[in-house]
Structures are given as structure tokens and as C-alpha cells.
């Protein structure tokens, strides 16, 4: 190991002299000399602390070298399954070819015990492979290099998703490694139609991007469009799925997300089954789902795993919360400062009593409180959990109690701000919640300037914007506008699963049937099919299957 001083000296030396060797891409074959190859490779890879070159005598006779990054491979396995068989055997082993040219085939077929690997004759193909975690075996006198996949990266284990918790439903969330995420999907979707297209993206990061869809189900035009949009991304690095989202979305200037991101494999599978397309990126614990519609952003897994009445009710509560977070402060401001006659008299008296000592107009008061609430929220996200708890207590105390007694805000304002904040946290999709939370500021300003009329103008603008938006050719407000009535079964309310016989029509799936028509959906259907109510028989013949529907 060099000391840092020497490292600095050699680095500066290298910077000062122009690089003499410019690697010619394409036609550089692997030469017969091991030394030359090694030097060439080291030259291309530069000097890295974790680059290992292990020289050894292959089968006790030929000079050979293993080149790999110690940070990307499992060294124990290399010892066990590569070095051991390659060094143990003596040259006179039966079946061993005499010619060096056949040696790599022999090694691949007989000696090493590795699942994936290829041979390569092109020297320029080797550095990218090493960077991806492959191990290179070079042999003196052979013009073929063996590339063996020994990649192993430590990852965190599968955990409960942080941003999308559920009461009832699977507890698994994505992790960073792509293979793991894909296995979580395959495990849930054991269909031969399930297709995964993987290709690297990003000129420098070469992050692998996987496009998942169900063949024979998803609209081919949609799949093609997603592929087209991904294919025209030209950037140096894809760090997270969020980078891709920003490259492929329809309307980058809109506050609303047009791509759904989720941490949940089960949610992804459900979307795939509806005929959507999912995009996963190596290194990101989020999957992107397109097309994403407004409807999706207040649905959760719980809606479907719980029984439909409760699911529907909770979904409505969530909608109310969403309306809270957007309109409440603006309505409050406009009613207080422009149309107090709209309040019931007793309430108006109470409010004006509370506001008596407050020196600011209602707009300013609400804005101050809302902004400090946002600051508090932002602060608690970044803090370690131990401090975050303490901060939120301080925040509640300071903002709630002290602000009122200091005459900064009236108690009713605090209530409004609290309702707004809580309402916005009840929206399941974080990015939509943020969009709505931020949109309430212009609404409050409009309310302060033009009163109720301003709020309505703002609302019309927001609704119009939502109506104009599209996600991958699907209108954002489908199935409300435009849409077919049958798609309304999964919108404001969640209809029973046995009633939703078709996939959403706006996704133009190739196979729209979820349940065959022969399956009786409702109890009535079954009675008609069986020619009478089963309960009409003697109550004595106890039959557990009596009340059950066939689906």
C-alpha cells in the first residue's frame, strides 16, 4: 500500500503527462502475451484500490491471471470454485487438452463451477465486464479470455415498505437490487406471459432498467410507447427510478405526478394484471407504474384486501381528507375576510372573539402558520428518528399553544392548519399529497385577493388542468372523464371483486376479461341459476356450503 503522499505524487505526474495510450475501440484483440494484456487492462481501468490481479500457475503449468474488483465479487466463492479447481489439478489430468486454444473450453466445461460466464476475444469488452462484477481469467498464450459472473453485492434484506404501510396485505417491499425485486415479482406472478426486458441505461452508470409487462394482455401500443420513451433517454447516469420518471412523463410542468411509484411488489403485480407496465431500476427500491391516473393516487392495498364496504368507506374518507388539505385554508380565509355572513352567527362571534388580538389579516396569519407547518414537516423528515420525535413535540407546543397565547394566531387558525396537515398525510401517495399541499398556497393567495371567487377560479384552473393532463395517452381523469360506466366500479367506491368482471377499458388490454361470464357474481344470479333459494330447504340439514356463492 502506498502512502497518501506517494499517491498524490503519482496522480499529479499522470495528470501532467498527456495519456500516451489511447485505446482504440473495436479491433483490439486479446494478444497472446499475458503481460501485455494485463498492462492494457490496468491502463484502461486506471488505478483502483479494490482492483485485484491474482497471478497463478494454471494447472501448475501455464501462467494465468484473475482480474476482478474485490468489492463486487464474493472472494470466498472464488477461492472455492475457481482458484481451487484451477490450481489443484495437475497438467496430466485425464481429458485435458494439449492445445492452449481449447483450454478455455476445457476450463469452462470441466474445471470451474460457475453458473454464468462467456468467453471473449475482444479486449475492449473486458473492462465493462469487470466493472459489472465479472471476473476475468487470462491465460498466457491464449487469445481468449474467460469472463465468469461472480458478482455478489450485500444488500439489505426485504423489509416492510416504509412509505406504503398496510394493515392487511403483504409486508414485503422492494430492496435496491434488481434481481431481488424481479424475484419478488415472479414469485407473485407465476405466469408464462410475464415478460421482463432488461437493458442498461446511462452512459456512465450503466444502470440496468427492467421493463415488466404481461404479454397477451398489456396494450402493445402502450408497451411500445414506454420502450420508445425509455430508448430516447440520453443521460450519463440513472441513480434512481425517479430519474426515469422525469424523463418519460408527459407533462413535466404539471404539479401532479403522471407516473406512479411504489415500493410494493403486490401493488406492482396488481397493476400489471390490469394491463399496465412497470419499470424497475437496479439500485432503486421503487417501481414505476404507467399509465398512472388521478384515481390511483388515493387507492391503497387495504382497499382491496379488506371487504368492499369498508374499503369503499375508507376510500371516501381519504377523498375528504384530500379535499381538506387543498381547500380548507383557502375557504377559511375567504369566508373570514370577505363573506363572514356565510357563517352561522354564533360561530362567527366565536371566531371574531378568537381573532381579536391577532394583528395580521387572515391571509397572512394562515400563510405564516402553513409555512411554519411545512418547515416543521420538512425538518422532521430529515432528522434521525430519536430527535424527530422530540422536535415534533416542540413544534406542536410552539406552533399550537405558544403562537395562540402570543397573539400570533387565533385558535381556529391552528385548528384549520392542523386539519389541513393531517388531511394531506392521509393521502396515500406522497408525491400527490405534496402536489396538493403546495397547490393550497396559491389558493390561499387567491382567496386573500378575491375571496370566494378567487378560490373558485383557482379550483376551476386546477380541475381543468387535471382534465387536460394525460399519462401515456390515457386521460388523467379517466375513468371519470372520459370513461365507461363499468370502469366506475373501482373509483370513488370499490365494488366487490366478483362484480369487477372486466379490466379497465381505458387501458385497451388485449384480454379484458377478469371473471368469465359463467361465474355467477351476485347472490341473485346464483339463486336464478339454481332455481330457488338454498335457504328454503330444511334448516336441519346443516351444510357449510349453503350460504356460499360459487365465487
Amino acid at each position, binding site marked *: 500500500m502506498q502512502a497518501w503522499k506517494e499517491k498524490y505524487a503519482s496522480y499529479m505526474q499522470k495528470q501532467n503527462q498527456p495519456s500516451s495510450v489511447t485505446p482504440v475501440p473495436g479491433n483490439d484483440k486479446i494478444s497472446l502475451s499475458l503481460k501485455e494484456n494485463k498492462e492494457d487492462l490496468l491502463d484502461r481501468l486506471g488505478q483502483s484500490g479494490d482492483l485485484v490481479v491474482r497471478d497463478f500457475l494454471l494447472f501448475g503449468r501455464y501462467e494465468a491471471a484473475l482480474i476482478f474488483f474485490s468489492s463486487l465479487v464474493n472472494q470466498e466463492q472464488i477461492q472455492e470454485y475457481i482458484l481451487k479447481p484451477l490450481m489443484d489439478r495437475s497438467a496430466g489430468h485425464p481429458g485435458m487438452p494439449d492445445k492452449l486454444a481449447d483450454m478455455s473450453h476445457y476450463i469452462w466445461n470441466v474445471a470451474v463451477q460457475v453458473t454464468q460466464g462467456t468467453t471473449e476475444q475482444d479486449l475492449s469488452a473486458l473492462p465493462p465486464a469487470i466493472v459489472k462484477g465479472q471476473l476475468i481469467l487470462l491465460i498466457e498464450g491464449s487469445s481468449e479470455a474467460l469472463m465468469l459472473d461472480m458478482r455478489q453485492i450485500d444488500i439489505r434484506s426485504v423489509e416492510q415498505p416504509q412509505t406504503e404501510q398496510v394493515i392487511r396485505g403483504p409486508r414485503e417491499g422492494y430492496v435496491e437490487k434488481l434481481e431481488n425485486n424481479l424475484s419478488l415479482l415472479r414469485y407473485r406472478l407465476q405466469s408464462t406471459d410475464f415478460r421482463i426486458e432488461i437493458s442498461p441505461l446511462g452512459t456512465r452508470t450503466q444502470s440496468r432498467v427492467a421493463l415488466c409487462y404481461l404479454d397477451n394482455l398489456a*396494450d402493445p*401500443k402502450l408497451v411500445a410507447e414506454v420502450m420508445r420513451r425509455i430508448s430516447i433517454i440520453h443521460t450519463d447516469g440513472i441513480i434512481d427510478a425517479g430519474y426515469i420518471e422525469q424523463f418519460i412523463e408527459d407533462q413535466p410542468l404539471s404539479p401532479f405526478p403522471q407516473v406512479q411509484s411504489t415500493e410494493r411488489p403486490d401493488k406492482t403485480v396488481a397493476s400489471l394484471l390490469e394491463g399496465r407496465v412497470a419499470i424497475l431500476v437496479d439500485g432503486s427500491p421503487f417501481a414505476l407504474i404507467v399509465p398512472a391516473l388521478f384515481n390511483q393516487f388515493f387507492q391503497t392495498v387495504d382497499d382491496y384486501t379488506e371487504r368492499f364496504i369498508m374499503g369503499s368507506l375508507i376510500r371516501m374518507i381519504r377523498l375528504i381528507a384530500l379535499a381538506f388539505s387543498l381547500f380548507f385554508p383557502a375557504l377559511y380565509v375567504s369566508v373570514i375576510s*370577505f*363573506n363572514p355572513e*356565510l357563517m*352561522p352567527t354564533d360561530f362567527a362571534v366565536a371566531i371574531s372573539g378568537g381573532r381579536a388580538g391577532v394583528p395580521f389579516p387572515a391571509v397572512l396569519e394562515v400563510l405564516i402558520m402553513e409555512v411554519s407547518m411545512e418547515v416543521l414537516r420538512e425538518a422532521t423528515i430529515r432528522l434521525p428518528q430519536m430527535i424527530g420525535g422530540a422536535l415534533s413535540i416542540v413544534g406542536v407546543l410552539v406552533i399550537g399553544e405558544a403562537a395562540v397565547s402570543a397573539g400570533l394566531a387565533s385558535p381556529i387558525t391552528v385548528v384549520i392548519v392542523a386539519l389541513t396537515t393531517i388531511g394531506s398525510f392521509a393521502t396515500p401517495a406522497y408525491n400527490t399529497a405534496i402536489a396538493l399541499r403546495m397547490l393550497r398556497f396559491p389558493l390561499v393567495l387567491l382567496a386573500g385577493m*378575491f*375571496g*370566494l*371567487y*378567487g378560490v*373558485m*377560479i383557482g379550483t*376551476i*384552473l386546477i*380541475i*381543468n388542468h387535471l*382534465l*387536460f393532463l394525460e399519462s401515456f*395517452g390515457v*386521460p388523467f*381523469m379517466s375513468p*371519470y*372523464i*372520459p370513461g365507461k360506466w363499468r370502469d366506475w366500479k373501482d373509483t370513488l367506491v370499490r365494488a366487490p371483486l366478483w362484480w369487477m368482471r372486466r379490466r379497465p377499458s381505458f387501458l*385497451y388490454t388485449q384480454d379484458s376479461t377478469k371473471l368469465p361470464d359463467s361465474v355467477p357474481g351476485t347472490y341473485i344470479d346464483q339463486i336464478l341459476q339454481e332455481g330457488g333459494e338454498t335457504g328454503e330447504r330444511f334448516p336441519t340439514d346443516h351444510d357449510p356450503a349453503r350460504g356460499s356463492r360459487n365465487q
Partner: protein
Amino acid sequence: MNDSRQITTLRAAAVISSTIIGVGLLSFPRYMAVAGNSAGPFVALTGVLVSFFSFWLLASLCRRFSTESLFVFSRRLIGRPLAMFFTLIIWLIFMTLTGLTARQFGDVATSVLFNKTPIEATIFLMLLICQLSARRNIIKFSYIHFFYLPLIIGSVLVTILISLRNVDLLNLQPVLTAPTASFWKGALEASYLFQSSFVITLLIPFMKLPKQAVRAGAIGIFVSGAVYWLIALACIGLFGAEETKLLIYPTLETARSAAIGEGFLERLDALFIVIWVISVYTSIYTTYYLASYLLQNLLGLRDQRMTSSAVLPFVFVIALLPENVFETYTWSLMLGNVSMLLLLGYPMLLWAVYWLRRSGKRGLS
């Protein structure tokens, strides 16, 4: 996926009816009471029929040229200069209509609910959101109407139904009246409200089933006609004809007097104003869209994005021209007369040329 013929018959009907239900909603019963006393609802009904006749004249013509809009095929029928002339006039009419409607809206809004907001700001904001949304294509245009219509009709119906409880049937008798001059004047006035059903000419080239244009219009006109009729019925039934004549905005008074339970939903008029603003928006949006579309047609531009901005100052100035409420009212009556003449006469002219040409062709072959 991106087929341009996407507007269903139902959606076309929704566009027409949400266009028609607009600024006139608040004062409509007063005009009807003035025209026909207790037979006000009957006057309204006659107005609906009159306007449907003029709509039918237009739509059945457009239906025969289902791939083009009126302004395109009229050039072939009566020649470019004449067609351009008529298009210009229709453009002027709709621009003025937009301005006057916005002005009426501003007058009502500032005097009833938003009295702290200056009228210029009220009008300008309304026109601004129309301008912003008029940049979009016709499919999106129809989405907007389809989205707002259930809100408008739903809440208007709820208000009416609640107040129908208090209707005194005696106020509505006699139901019929002899058709006097004032009766016809009132019927015509009622039919002016329906003039923006002209928007069907824009929709037909984008309709899934252009043959059903007349049916769409019939649904649209009769749904909105029913809303107007019910409002007239409720107001006159509630207050009596003489009292209704004295109220400036009888519909609003009806909403004010309506209440469910003991104070459960007391202030229905606030809700009503909110909905009314939306309904005004949809109707101004349509006329604004027509104005910018016509200007685009006159100038031969690719789409109406630029013209929608160009129209804005003109419309705003027109909206500020009238000195007072009375002038606004007279002007819009005059405009109604002019456009009634034109919207009846122009299709008739086109029909005549169309028949002449057809028989000419037949004679040749």
C-alpha cells in the same frame, strides 16, 4: 388510441346543455313573469321549442357534411368571399356575446356575493381562465363540459326540489295564456339563451356518430330547457308572478328561502352562487372558444392557441363598454335579435343553395 372522432352523443349533449345553462339562470324567471305572468313556464317552453327549431335547421344541415365544420363547407356552397363575410359576422356576434355575458356575470357577482371584488378583476379573471382553457383541442373542451354538467344540474335540481315544497299551485294558474305580443317577445328572449347551441357546428366533425347530432342537440336543449322551465316554475310558484317581477334575481331568492331541516343546510344560496359561477364559466368558455376558433378560421391558422390570446383584449373591452346594468341588458337583447336573425337566416340560405346545387346535379345527370 388517438382517434379524432371521440365525442360521443351524450358528451355532445352535455356540451350543449352546460353551455346553455349560464348567466341567465338567476334572472330568467323575472323575464318569464313579465312576459306571461302566471303562464311564465309556458312562455319558457315556447322559447325552448323556438330555439330547437333554429337548432334543428342548423344541425341537420351540418350533419350532411359530417367531416367538416360549417365554416369550411360553407365556402364550397356559397363561395369563399360570402362565406368569409358570414364567418366574420358570426365571429363578431360571438365575441360580443362573450363580452356581454362576462359583463352580466360581473354585474351579478359584484352586487350579490363578491361585493368587495372590483368588477374589472372579476371579469378579467373569468376571461383569463377561459383563455387558458381555450388553448386546448375540442376533445378536451368536451371533457370540461362533461365534467361540470352533473355538478351544475345536480345542485340546481336539488335547490329547485327543495323549494318546490313551498310552491303554491294557485300562483301558477292560469297555466296558459293567449299569445300576445309580449308573450312572443318573452319566448324569443328565452330562446336567446339557447343560441350558443351553435357550438354543435364545432363538435360534429369530432363526433363518433355525426348522424346523431340532432339527437344530441335535442337532449342538450331539452335538458337545459327543463332546468330553466323548472326554475321559472319554482320561482313563480313560490313568489307569485307579481312578486317575481320585482325581484332582480328571483332564482337566488328561491335558493335563499329553501332550507332542509332546522338549519341543517341553511345557506343554500352560497352553494348556488358557487355552482352558478361554474355554469357561467362553462357558457363563457364555449362562446370564447367559438370566438377564437372562428378567428383562427378567418386567419387560416393551424390552431386557435394564438387567436385565443388575441381575442382576450377585445372581449375584455367589450365587457367594460356598457355604462350600467340596464345598458348591458338592452345591448344583449339587441345582440340576441341580430344573432337570431343570422342564425336562422344563414342556415336557410345554405339550405337553399344546397338544394339548388343538388337538384342542379340531378338535372345534369
